[in-house]
């Protein structure tokens, strides 16, 4: 009985113990908060790495047509099989091609408003993506990207007229006798070319002849229906969307689709299994060659970057765990001092019949209380901070007059934070283990003390 009683009394009677408790609280709290924010950041990072990738990507290899008399293969058969799977939420065919865009009538100015890309230099090479709007909306965030421009009063005039039909002709379009074909342009590209809704742009591309190997260039005039903004700069500066039929026309009906994007109801749960099943079914239907690289999850496509993020998460966790060592060391130091200070008490306890084990437990219990109070309040503090980090940061920034979190330089305007319950539990357990381990040293020393030696001293 005295162990509980005395350890608690020593804990409360000595102010210095507060330092140990506060140390653990701050350590655990900071660890949980930082880890939650880092997890939030890494989630965002992961999302950025993912980019426009949908859960699964099907890229049949044998799409090239050697016999021009045969029409290009259509995606419907493949889509039917994919959509039949109950785990699939949506599937969208895409025709992806490369090309260049030049604002019509501005050719002479192109040297001034040339397209500048940080990686490829001054070559206005753009990814041309042909989509079926309704299915694309199911698998990708294009609708949101379009809405970001058209719903913002500041940029609404650069947005599409009708979100449900983004390729619809803009209002007040000059009728210059050119067949109407719509194009959606990434906001950065749009700004670089100083485009306006209704502008005509010339889209150029090259199409190889699979038999002769000769490359012939094609071009068509498209009308700008609006800009989109995903927030990810590569997409916003490199991509233009077309109606899939119109893009097929541009490339001479060379092919009608190149990939099928698949969105699942629950990728975390079903991703790998669905990928394998679809691969098998499509192979059986002879829609892919079945050599194992035509159906991929988005993680397959970004494997090494994902691995790097996971690695970062672990690395950060391990390094931050050093904080717990510091907290444990504080308890060690305080308890060591207390053992020296309490030599006489230890002698008295022995004289009154306390065993060595009892003395050991008493001092370990002090550390246990430290850890309990510290870790629990630290966990509460850390979780609270992780949840409230955004208002907290705003308040702190306003108070000290310095913008701690610069929202301009990130794509997200609240501080990302995700609490991982397992991590919280591990941190709390770690704090306990660390504190008790450190406390064991002075506690054993206390138990080894010669009671008489302790009593003689006055």
């Amino acid at each position, binding site marked *: *009985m*005295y162990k*509980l*009683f*005395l350890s608690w*009394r*020593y804990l409360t*009677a000595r102010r210095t113990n507060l330092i140990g408790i506060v140390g653990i609280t701050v350590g655990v709290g900071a660890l949980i908060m930082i880890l939650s924010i880092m997890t939030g950041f890494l989630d965002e990072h992961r999302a950025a790495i993912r980019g426009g990738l949908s859960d699964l990507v099907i890229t049949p290899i044998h799409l090239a047509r050697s016999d021009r008399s045969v029409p290009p293969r259509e995606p419907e058969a493949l889509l039917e099989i994919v959509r039949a799977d109950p785990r699939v939420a949506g599937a969208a065919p895409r025709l992806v091609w490369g090309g260049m865009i030049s604002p019509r009538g501005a050719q002479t100015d192109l040297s001034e408003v040339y397209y500048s890309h940080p990686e490829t230099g001054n070559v206005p090479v753009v990814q041309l993506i042909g989509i079926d709007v309704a299915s694309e909306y199911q698998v990708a965030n294009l609708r949101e990207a379009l809405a970001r421009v058209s719903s913002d009063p500041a940029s609404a005039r650069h947005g599409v007229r009708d979100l449900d039909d983004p390729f619809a002709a803009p209002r007040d379009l000059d009728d210059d006798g050119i067949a109407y074909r719509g194009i959606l342009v990434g906001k950065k590209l749009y700004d670089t070319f100083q485009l306006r809704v209704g502008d005509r742009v010339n889209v150029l591309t090259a199409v190889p002849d699979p038999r002769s190997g000769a490359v012939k260039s094609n071009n068509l005039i498209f009308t700008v229906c609006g800009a989109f903004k995903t927030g990810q700069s590569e997409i916003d500066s490199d991509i233009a969307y077309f109606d899939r039929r119109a893009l097929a026309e541009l490339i001479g009906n060379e092919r009608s689709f190149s990939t099928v994007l698949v969105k699942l109801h629950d990728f975390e749960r079903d991703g790998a299994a669905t990928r394998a099943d679809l691969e098998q079914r499509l192979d059986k239907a002879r829609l892919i060659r079945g050599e194992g690289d035509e159906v991929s999850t988005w993680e397959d496509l970004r494997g090494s970057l994902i691995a790097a993020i996971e690695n970062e998460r672990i690395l950060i966790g391990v390094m931050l765990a050093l904080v717990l060592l510091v907290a444990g060391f504080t308890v060690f130091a305080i308890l060591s001092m207390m053992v020296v200070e309490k030599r*006489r*008490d230890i*002698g*008295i*306890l*022995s*004289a*009154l*019949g*306390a*065993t*060595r*084990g*009892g003395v050991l437990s008493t001092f370990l219990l002090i550390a246990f209380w430290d850890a309990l109070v510290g870790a629990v309040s630290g966990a509460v503090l850390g979780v609270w901070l992780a949840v409230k980090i955004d208002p907290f940061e705003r308040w702190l920034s306003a108070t000290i007059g310095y913008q701690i979190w610069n929202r301009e330089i990130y794509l997200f305007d609240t501080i990302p934070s995700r609490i991982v319950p397992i991590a919280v539990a591990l941190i709390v357990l770690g704090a306990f283990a660390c504190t008790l381990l450190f406390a064991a040293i002075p506690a054993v020393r206390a138990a080894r003390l010669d*009671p*008489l030696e302790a*009593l003689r001293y*006055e």
Partner: protein
Amino acid sequence: MSAPASGTRHALEVRGIAKSFQVGSETLDVLRGIDLAIPYGQPVALVGSSGAGKSTLLHIAGLLERPSAGSVRVDGVDGWNLSPDERAKVRNRKVGFVFQFYHLLPELSALENVLLPAMIAHSPGEYRAARAQLTEAALGLLARFGLQARTKHRPSQLSGGERQRVALARALIHDPPILIADEPTGNLDSATGERVLELLFDEQRTRHFAMLLVTHDAKLAARCPRTVTMRDGRIVGDTNGSGAA
């Protein structure tokens, strides 16, 4: 009072105790063969010049310090033949200690100090069950020692005499068969010491525990029916004709 263990008349029985300390390369023989038996209920004064080995004998008899040779029976139990934990239990239940410097725990109130041996003796469950009764016993002791208004005070808020009375109550909470005291009045002025002794002997008369009291105080020695004198690690005098053997 505790019932005597079978086949013994002695609360404390010390046989052939020798103790030597190694100080550097020299061996210091502090006790050189001590035999002392104290019957239940007998108060014994232990006197002798400083350095005679009185405190060392008390520590050995109180199972705090292991002798180089010899045995100690407390209430019939051979204390130095027990495991450390069993020995701790004997110390807790059968020996009451009073020290010259009180040795109270500074963070505990007077009442808590008195209850400490009981807290050590019982598991949390047992203690909770016996709590009311134990508290009552402790408060009774403190009241008899004139400390009823002091039960919640910390040792630092008490005078020397009050502290020693708290220590006395603590030593008696388990009603031990033997009380061991090392110069209990050595740190008190004579009037205060006198009052403490008055209480101690009053208590002894009602409870009949045996006592082994080290003292320099002739008045204290005179209160005891038996006085044992030590010199250079040996017993050189014992007023109880038959008791020295």
